[in-house]
């Protein structure tokens, strides 16, 4: 099955870089989710939680403001700051 390649990067470090099944984040107009095959998409992110699902496991990240881009099943999230809360 197709997967999403997600990169979450802050000025401090590369926070997360992996292939996952689904990602949810908080955009300026509200929460949104991305699955493989999503349309090209560009949005600003507000402070909140980012949730990724990989093989049924949830990864939770607390995120600052930033930008999200979805392009050909590649998701790029540039955050001002962020921290991985729980994994697995």
């Amino acid at each position, binding site marked *: 099955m197709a997967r999403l390649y997600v990169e979450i990067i802050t*000025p401090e470090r590369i926070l997360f870089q992996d292939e996952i099944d689904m990602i949810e984040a908080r955009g300026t107009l509200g929460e949104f989710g991305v699955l493989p095959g999503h349309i090209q998409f560009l949005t600003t992110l507000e402070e909140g939680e980012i949730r990724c699902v990989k093989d049924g496991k949830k990864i939770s990240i607390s995120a600052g403001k930033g*930008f999200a881009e979805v392009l050909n099943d590649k998701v790029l999230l540039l955050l001002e700051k962020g921290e991985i809360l729980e994994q697995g």
Partner: protein
Amino acid sequence: MATLRDIRRKIQSIKSTQTITRTMKMVASSRLRRSQDELERLRPYAIKIEELKDRIVSSLPESIHPVIKEKEEIKNVLLFACASDRGLCGSFNANVNFAIENFITQNRENYEKIGLYIVGKKIRDYFAKRGALIVKEFVEQRRIGRETVEEISDDLISYYVKGEFDKVFAVYTFFRSPLKQIVTVEELLPVKSKRADQKIDYLYEPDRKSILERFIPQYLSTRIWYMILNSQTSEHASRMNAMENATNNCGEMINFLTLLYNKKRQESITKEMLDIVGGAEAVKKTTY
């Protein structure tokens, strides 16, 4: 003529200079390591935001935001120059000064006014003496933080949008490796895409203008921050090399002077021996 004591004094003085340069080298190398680490951390973010900028800017019409629109008539140009507050770092500051001066002499005819926006005392001093137009300066900042960078980026954007300057260039030292640093001149504003052919039909949320209004300052401040970090890392590397050379030169001089000192000492001993032998011979002769 140098006496034995003079030479000994000289050796002592060079030795203390060597201690100082060796210490400075060690300080610079530990700062280099820290600075390089900080640079490496920012690099992925800087590269990704640069790529994203290329994609966004090429997908949008120029008219949407003044910062991505090229001015028709370019009269006033601003140079954002970045070097260090302190000397004793080889040709680090001189190279940046030289690049700026070159730029000014080459472009004096083309533009009405060339302004300087300066980070670093050494370039400030150099160009203040030569009567260049200094728009703003950041001097003797112990640590350049995120707030300073945001201030610089806001300033540059407002100069451009208000029309005080029609183009902004950056001059800084790019850190290639601890042994190689390159002075670079880059165009900062207007923000242009390196890949104009790449047009992507995004779904924008909330809308193109508000995304760009938030993206451009973030992009520019990241880029400036990256430049300043590059410049700082280069400064430490350059100082480390300069001080390493100075320490080596001190060692060479000490070797040379020690050789001279030993020769002189041997010479005087031989002279004294000759005197004693001669004196003894003379005494022997008188007893007969």
